[in-house]
């Protein structure tokens, strides 16, 4: 388990809670789900993960998606279009 260098982008409510739109970080998280759980604890995201979405390198992926160094991870709180 080695740390990965990731770029994380927060949207809407998550950006307000994290206080930033984008950050570079290193993380031992193996999957998008592990990364989300760590950041949700850090920033007090109250929304259950199942109501949120995640994209890696501009592709929507699931919470088991493996992370690699260099990935750009987009964290989407519950959507409300229309």
């Amino acid at each position: 388990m080695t740390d990965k260098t990731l770029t994380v982008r927060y949207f809407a409510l998550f950006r307000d809670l994290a206080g930033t739109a984008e950050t570079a970080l290193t993380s031992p998280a193996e999957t998008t789900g592990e990364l989300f759980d760590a950041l949700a604890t850090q920033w007090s995201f109250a929304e259950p993960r199942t109501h949120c979405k995640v994209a890696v390198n501009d592709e929507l992926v699931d919470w088991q998606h493996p992370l690699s160094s260099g990935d750009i991870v987009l964290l989407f709180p519950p959507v409300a279009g229309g």
Partner: protein
Amino acid sequence: MSAVCIAATPIDGQALTQALRDPYCGGFVSFEGWVRNHNEGERVLRLEYEVYTPIAVSEGEKIIAEAKQRFAIDGARCVHREGMLALGDMAVWVGVTAAHRGPAFDACQYIIDNVKTRLPIWKKESYENGDSGWVNCEQPAAHGHAHG
């Protein structure tokens, strides 16, 4: 013309309808979502849409392709606004043409249902009482009062 578009300026429903006209199609169904003046008892003053456009467009086009596969339709388009909107402004437009009306109704509803749940679009409402907040899944923002 892409089947899905994120628009920073007002949506022209009539022009979109004209563009879908097809002499082979007898039926046209459209859905328009308008900014309304209330949400769960709060009086809404205005509204802001944040959109992550690259995925909103690619996911929207996936939805339109699914609709064309599931239902006997010919044309389908969707346009969603981003940025600040006032009361009564059109937030989203979906139009579908088909030879027969049943599939047109089904496909239009399929598209708007999926657009609302799958596209990375967020809505921040500003209320008359001074609060504002992100609306989650068509519920009023749980964090609205924290921002008041």
